[in-house]
């Protein structure tokens, strides 16, 4: 039973491809939100950090805003509004793990938009919020 001499290289390459597919950057998510936002509205003219900040800090017909847990300053740690459990900062400048995992980004937008708005967020809303979060320096 001889393994091909290139096997370790193939395995290493496969690992690298998998690793790079799993780890993304905030810019990757922004690009994907942009593609969806263009499909949602023909007149899409780019994301706005200012709009994102207003969306983040306002309530949307329910009890909580994004800031209820993530605070008015997303570079600082937050606390869960109900259980008081500490939440690490949301802004990528303060927490390099944020917006690097598609599964987590999908899961938390799904849950939190439902809690804050009672519906899914649009790609345009997600892109605005992300534009706001990446605009914040530590």
């Amino acid at each position, binding site marked *: 039973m001889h393994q091909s001499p290139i096997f370790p290289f193939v395995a290493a390459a496969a690992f690298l491809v998998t690793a790079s597919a799993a780890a993304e950057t905030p810019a990757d998510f922004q690009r994907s939100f942009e593609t969806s936002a263009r499909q949602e509205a023909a007149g899409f003219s780019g994301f706005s950090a200012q709009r994102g900040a207003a969306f983040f800090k306002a309530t949307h017909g329910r009890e909580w805003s994004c800031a209820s847990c993530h605070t008015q300053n997303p570079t600082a740690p937050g606390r*869960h509004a*109900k*259980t*008081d*459990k500490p939440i690490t900062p949301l802004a990528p400048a303060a927490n390099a793990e944020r917006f690097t995992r598609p*599964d987590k980004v999908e*899961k938390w937008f*799904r*849950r*939190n938009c*439902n*809690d804050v708005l009672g519906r899914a967020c649009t790609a345009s809303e997600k892109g605005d919020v992300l534009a706001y979060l990446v605009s914040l320096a530590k």
Partner: protein
Amino acid sequence: MKQVMRFGLLTLLTVAATGTGVALAGDHRYPAPSPLVKAECGSCHIAYPPQLLSASAWRALMSGLDRHFGTDASLDPQTAATITTFLEQNAGRKRSLSASSTLRISETRWFVHEHDEVPGSVWKSPKVKSPSNCAACHSNAEQGDFNEHNVHIPK
């Protein structure tokens, strides 16, 4: 004999897979949660020990994660299935637990009894906020340690 060995190995594998062993309930120490359980059940509150609710209560709770005590805590189906199995296998088996239909650990007879010396003012303190906030007083709750020696009521 062979069957006994196979059963032993299966138990060992199950314990290794879920990261749990036998809970030392009298000591109020429970096995620390596995990384998956800690990550998924422990992001909004601590990952509560599975021994504190019955298997049927866990099943009911896990089937309504999108309306989890007023918030959306939904999971992808595969993760939810893995965690449900873990909770069922390690659920509490006391008769008082199966007799109650509550999904809130803090409403079980056991919890109420264990905390009957805690004054009402402590629950209302801004540093505690809610009985779901175990770690406010049980400093090592995150690791499954609810031993009375490690209780520090915040002032």
